[in-house]
């Protein structure tokens, strides 16, 4: 006759509500609150990644497959026509996603490994090593990186490896500065001191004590550096000293098809062809910027307005 429980325990009631949210649930909640621009960025970014990963499955032809008609029009068989030696442009756009983004991603990873590692060491060490590294970075940053990259490429030649190494080293200067600046604030914390007194090695202190605490700015910086590296590589390839043919790459595709633009009066589609790879570059950069903006807002409460 008495349907209510005999005794009332607040803890029991609270316990029902206090189920911890899973990681997926938390991500979903954050996504639901994300602005339209972030959604747009995330969708574009995932589409690019899918295209890059599954390029051979999505592309109708081979990367360097040559057809008889050069500068062919947009038609059934070749959605965006063919280029100056008769390669299918749609196919090369798809492969370009893989090559351009892949090389930019590897370069950014390498630049974070170099710049981030040295930055952490400099922040922990704070002695002559820090001085030497910081002054070296000052000098390297005094030369515009595109100019420096051009000079080094003229010496080492334009191979993919030298491209990756040169740009990664030039770019790591900025990563070094950021890592050092944020890590210095963490190094003075008591728990780092405790780890040092425990006798932990520098590797442990870097990985387990400092790195987790400086992750958010580094992740945001990764996005920005990626889009910067991506633009630099595209610019170098456009100038003809970056990724070399027959590898499909958006920067060099713009250069190769640029002459089509003068026929825009007669066939607007031909005029648009060289803009397609350029638009692909611009769209990716915009998307990355949107996502990074949103990430900075949610992770650090950084706001534009005062």
């Amino acid at each position, binding site marked *: 006759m008495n349907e209510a429980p005999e005794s009332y325990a607040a803890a029991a009631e609270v316990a029902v509500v206090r189920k911890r949210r899973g990681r997926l649930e938390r991500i979903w909640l954050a996504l639901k609150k994300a602005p339209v621009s972030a959604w747009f960025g995330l969708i574009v970014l995932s589409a690019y990644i899918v295209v890059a990963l599954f390029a051979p499955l999505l592309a109708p032809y081979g990367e360097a497959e040559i057809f008889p008609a050069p500068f062919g029009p947009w038609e059934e068989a070749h959605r965006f026509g063919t280029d100056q030696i008769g390669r299918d442009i749609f196919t090369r756009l798809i492969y370009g996603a893989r090559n351009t983004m892949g090389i930019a991603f590897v370069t950014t990873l390498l630049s974070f490994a170099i710049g981030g590692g040295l930055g952490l060491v400099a922040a922990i060490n704070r002695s002559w090593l820090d001085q030497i590294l910081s002054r070296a970075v000052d000098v390297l940053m005094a030369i515009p990186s595109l100019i420096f990259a051009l000079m080094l490429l003229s010496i080492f030649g334009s191979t993919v490896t030298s491209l990756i190494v040169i740009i990664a080293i030039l770019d790591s200067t900025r990563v070094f500065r950021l890592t050092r600046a944020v890590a210095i604030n963490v190094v003075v914390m008591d728990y780092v001191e405790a780890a040092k007194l425990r006798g932990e090695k520098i590797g442990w202190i870097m990985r387990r004590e400092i790195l987790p605490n400086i992750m958010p700015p580094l992740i945001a910086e990764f996005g920005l550096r990626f889009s910067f590296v991506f633009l630099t590589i595209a610019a170098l390839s456009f100038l003809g000293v970056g990724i070399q043919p027959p590898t499909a790459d958006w920067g060099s595709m713009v250069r190769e098809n640029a002459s089509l633009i003068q026929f825009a009066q007669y066939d607007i589609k031909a005029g648009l062809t060289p803009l397609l790879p350029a638009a692909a*570059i611009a769209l990716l950069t915009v998307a990355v910027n949107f996502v990074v903006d949103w990430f900075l807002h949610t992770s650090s409460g950084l706001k534009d307005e005062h």
Partner: protein
Amino acid sequence: MHPVLATILKRLGLGVATLFVVSAIIFSSISLLPGDFGEAVLGQAATTETVAAFRKELGLDKPAPVRYLDWVSSVLKGDFGTSFSGRAASGVDRSRSVAELIAPRLKNTLFLAGVTAIIAVPLALLIGLTAALYRNSLYDRGVNALTLTTISMPEFFVAYILILLLSSLWPVFPSLANVDASTEFGERLRRIALPAITLTLVIVAHMMRMTRAAIINLLASPYIEMALLKGASRSEVILKHALPNAWAPIATVIAFNLAYLVVGVVVVEVVFVYPGIGQLMVDSVTARDTPVVQACALIFASTYIVLNLIADVIGIVTNPRLLHPR
């Protein structure tokens, strides 16, 4: 000594030191060339003697510090050495001096950069100031979205869109900016219209956003609120209270973007086939003509360093705290 003078001298000293180290780096790039580059330059048929003579001409038989001092002293006299192109295995030397190659092109580049700066700087400051004044208005949001889009686009994308619209579909301006010494001033302006507009769009976006951020940062400080509470008018607050402190960031913004122009000019010159120093550098990189690349890199890097130096000095000179020491 006046503290301002001391700070400026210190900064100038640092600038000279940086320039020195950068020149050393650029110089040492020639020693990084692979050992057989003499044959690569002179061709397959080069004999051991001609290669040895070539290496001797470059001074590779002397120790590096001596070569560096020689190089610096001749660069200061305006002599950048001779280009690698035009050399032949037979020892016949049709190469031209680097200075002779660079001089007319440097003039062209300075002309393009100058025209761009004259349009872009006032425009960016005006837009930046007004966007900061009416912030969060429709105007501010519109300008922000537009500039964010321009920044994200590579220069050559902007350039080709402009060519498509203003040269191909509606032929207003020529798509090739081929000028030479005989081109008249008016015609010259018309031909560089598209490259100048491209560069303007790119750097106005940067400059405007940075100016806006600098002013907004300043308007949030307590002393501005104090001035408002005292009853100062809006224009008085901005001109008398905010601007003296804003000169330093604004000068930095301008110099930074003029320095950015140095880099942007390379890509834009290639798009429009403009005979400037940027295009020369790219061509020389492809031809692996190291003396020319070195000279171009030195010019670009020193312009960049000097512009940043000027910005810092302006920042120091206009800093009210340094000007009125207690």
